[in-house]
């Protein structure tokens, strides 16, 4: 038996030390797509966190009765149903945002973080602990999305949450927006930079190289 962690640890570990996006590099597809502005990034983060917490709780409740042979299907059905319900709620009460998030809310169902947490943690832990762990993972994902979303909106459009922060050159200010920031590649650059920064600060996050770099001296 692995020694049980304190609840506080379960919650905070995925924020920085075990961040699902930065360390495990999971769920980056949606992280790239919805971060062109801060409000879509925040909505996506909240939706994902709600889904992952509820899914972890539900799956943990029935964990003793999930037959091993169909466990993945059962988990995916539960996750997908939750995602549809969330999507419908967004369309009903946050119509504008749901238009801009378009298909990415439905794609939470295929987000590796959700299935990763339910499969690796909720299936073998009691509901409260599982939900705490899921909340931590959701918040870790949210943290990265918020950072990237803020960067991209600030430098791509000079705005934050739709409010003009940097005066645009078009409107008589000094700031020329970087259009690159609104394109998908910039999210890769930012995410790469973020991972590099995190692994320089906490060197234990860096993975051992799988292949040793080619040694040139031997070739002579």
């Amino acid at each position, binding site marked *: 038996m692995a020694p049980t962690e304190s609840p506080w640890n379960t919650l905070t570990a995925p924020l920085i030390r075990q961040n699902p996006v930065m360390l495990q590099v999971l769920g980056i597809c949606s992280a790239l797509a919805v971060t062109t502005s801060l409000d879509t990034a925040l909505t996506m983060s909240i939706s994902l966190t709600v889904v992952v917490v509820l899914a972890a709780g539900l799956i943990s409740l*029935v964990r003793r*009765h*999930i*037959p091993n042979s169909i466990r993945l299907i059962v988990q995916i059905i539960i996750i997908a*149903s939750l995602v549809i319900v969330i999507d*419908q709620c967004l369309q*009903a009460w946050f119509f504008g945002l749901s238009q801009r998030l378009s298909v990415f809310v439905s794609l939470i169902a295929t987000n590796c973080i959700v299935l990763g947490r339910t499969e690796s943690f909720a299936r073998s832990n009691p509901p409260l602990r599982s939900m705490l762990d899921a909340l931590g993972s959701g918040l870790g994902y949210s943290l990265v999305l918020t950072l990237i979303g803020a960067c991209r909106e600030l430098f791509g459009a000079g705005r934050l949450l739709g409010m003009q922060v940097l005066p645009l050159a078009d409107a008589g200010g000094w700031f020329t927006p970087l259009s690159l920031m609104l394109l998908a590649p910039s999210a890769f650059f930012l995410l790469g930079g973020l991972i590099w920064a995190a692994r320089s600060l906490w060197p234990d996050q860096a993975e051992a190289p799988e292949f040793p770099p080619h040694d040139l001296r031997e070739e002579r």
Partner: protein
Amino acid sequence: MADLNPLSLWRRFLALPNDSRTKTLVVAFLVSSICAVLVTTATVMLRPIQAQNRAAEQQARLEALVAAVPGISALLEEAGDAALSTVVIDLETGAAAKSVTPETLETALADPANWTTLSATDDIAGIGSRPNYAQIYLLRSGETVRLAILPVVGSGYGGRIQALLALNGDMQTLAGLAVTEQSETPGLGARIAEAPWQQGFAGKRLFDDTGAARLAVARGPARGEHEVDGITGATRTGNAVTQMVRFWVGPKGYGSTIAALRRGDF
């Protein structure tokens, strides 16, 4: 004697080993039915609110667009309270449709029989098929039509482009163009959605002397009364807008409607 008490049946079921066939089947069935009920309830309960949202959004967009057409506020003031009237037209005849009203338009367009497939030579806008009915907006002062707003659609570089084309009462010069939906490249083609570019359409002439559609988005700055400034780095988006406008004012689009408006049929 079999024990038929549901509670003890349930207990016996839970006590079954997880990998037994019965338990696998029953768990799969239960999970999917519970999820189905959950999803159905959410969808059915929230549908009215969603439909309301969609209708409100469409109305708001139309109002914003009409207000965005340059010079329209002056026209609206001139026209007094004679607001915009909505007409569903039959694109074949160019006259007002008899059987379809704005309320029933959506139902009519859900029927594939009310769509016409375009041949490759006709389909310069790349849209494949076009509806037989379209909803247009007319602004009158007295009996004369001062402004006609025609919704158009075309296929751009990144996806569909939807726009509203506003024609002055002479049915020759443009009052403006407003892009309502596009998915062009941000920073390049997506600039067609920006007001400064759209303002370039005001006052441009649509047709040449023979009556053929001549308006074009130029490569580079506009030359002459038939051209609109191009956007650097968005040649294909510009071409798409050109083709879209030319298709919709042409014979397969609103050509017959524009002719009818010229004759003063509306």
